[in-house]
């Protein structure tokens, strides 16, 4: 793995017994000694610490940074209050999703966190369209940690009591273990928790301070994936990509009214016509959850049919696996809209056999956010 990038926590992962794998150009821990199943369960029961330093952190500064970003992102950014964060995505000219992201109003700048695999493209995209009116500055000198789970508040409060005062999607600058951290009360596990941006050379110290707490275990990408899947959350490049629109992806909620047709700042982002047309006329397919009958996991790529015999494919699974908290297989994917109502039974083809899948609402496990 010599050509892979290392995060500042690499040596700590190895010390803690992580199995390291290549992911988006980085050597990342897929699991530690507990294994995926126990790491997943530990996060839902107590608190898990995730290294997400491979993700891209970017500052957008200058007068009108929010307005500038609204040219690329169909989200209400101008209306995002100071010290608040929201979910969004870059769209392309066809309304497809170039990447999904988090946006925070940190007063003198908008802080953007994007996916590792897309970060170079995203940064180039922002620079090409937004500079020189605003300045797009990557922040490679900061690591990103996620502390997730019901004990996250108690744990982080031992380092700074103000952590407990934050509500879901609040952001704040907090001193943690002597480091100036950019903290948001958010995450991608369906649990309460925090994401913490910390200078690279202070990241190991902070991670060790958090891991010193009895309730905290280090958690790898394996459990991060099963946690977000149970949470009904999209994985870019799998559940959403340039060929899926936010409407097909059931992410319409992320486009606030002010940016929709008839809103004060309607459109003005790439693919607005395609997206508005889908909002008005409906979509031919949409993202739904599936609970397979039985115990066999149905993973990405499984073809879906309306019945046990039909030759006409009506959809496919984009993410699937075993849900440790659900105690059985869970999946998400796209289905022709006519078949996509919750309660419908469709069939996934697994190793040549058609097995029933029950269309269901997501999340599979109730979200546990501190609203």
């Amino acid at each position, binding site marked *: 793995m010599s050509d892979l990038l290392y995060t500042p926590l690499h040596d700590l992962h190895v010390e803690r017994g992580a199995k390291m794998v290549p992911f988006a150009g980085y050597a990342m821990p*897929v*699991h530690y000694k507990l*294994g*995926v*199943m*126990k790491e997943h369960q530990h996060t839902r029961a107590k608190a898990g610490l995730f290294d997400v330093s491979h993700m891209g952190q970017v500052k957008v500064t200058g007068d009108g940074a929010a307005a500038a970003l609204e040219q690329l992102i169909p989200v209400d950014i101008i209306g995002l209050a100071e010290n608040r964060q929201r979910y969004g995505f870059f769209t392309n000219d066809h309304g497809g999703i170039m990447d999904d992201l988090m946006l925070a109003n940190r007063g003198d700048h908008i802080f953007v966190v994007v996916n590792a695999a897309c970060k170079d493209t995203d940064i180039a995209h922002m620079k090409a369209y937004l500079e020189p009116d605003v300045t797009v500055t990557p922040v490679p000198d900061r690591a990103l940690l996620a502390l997730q789970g019901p004990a996250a508040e108690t744990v982080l409060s031992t380092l700074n009591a103000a952590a407990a005062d934050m509500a879901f999607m609040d952001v704040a600058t907090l001193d943690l273990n002597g480091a100036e951290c950019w903290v948001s009360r958010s995450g991608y596990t369906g649990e309460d928790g925090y994401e913490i941006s910390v200078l690279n050379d202070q990241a190991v110290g902070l991670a060790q301070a958090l891991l010193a707490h009895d309730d905290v275990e280090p958690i790898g990408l*394996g459990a991060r994936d*099963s946690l977000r899947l149970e949470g009904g959350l999209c994985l870019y490049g799998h559940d959403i990509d340039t060929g899926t629109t936010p409407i097909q992806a059931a992410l319409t909620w992320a486009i606030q009214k002010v940016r929709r047709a008839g809103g004060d700042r309607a459109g003005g982002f790439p693919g607005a016509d395609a997206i508005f047309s889908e909002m008005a006329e409906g979509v031919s397919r949409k993202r739904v959850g599936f609970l397979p009958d039985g*115990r*066999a*996991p149905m*993973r990405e790529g499984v073809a879906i049919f309306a019945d046990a015999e039909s030759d006409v494919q009506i959809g496919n699974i984009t993410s699937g*696996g*075993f849900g*440790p908290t659900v105690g059985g*297989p869970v999946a998400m994917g796209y289905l022709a809209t006519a078949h996509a109502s919750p309660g419908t039974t469709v069939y996934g083809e697994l*190793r040549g056999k058609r097995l029933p899948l029950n269309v269901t609402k997501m999340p599979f496990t109730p979200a546990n956010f501190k609203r």
Partner: protein
Amino acid sequence: MKFTEEHEWLRPEDDVIVVGITEHATTQLGDIVFVELPEVGTTVAKDDEAVVIESVKAASDIMAPIDGEIVAVNEALADNPGLANEDATGDGWFFKIKPSDPSQMDDYMDEAAYNDMIA
């Protein structure tokens, strides 16, 4: 007991061979969440796909290590696939096969040779 390069173990028991996968294999696979076993009475040839196991990470195929007839499968794995992790060489066995050519067993490693291979 004999071992294959694919991390299966074969244990003679009366006139049948009990087959499972090694603890080394289950550790590599991670938590096993689903095991699809062959039907009793199926005749298999060496290297036929016999079992599908799914761990939290991925699906893997287990091949029949010898020719023969499947005479029993471990039904307990249907409800508790984690048995393969907990007791790989005991309660986590997969199937029993009646060999049509018992000399095929001679091709496989003994425990010392297997341990050398995974060391």
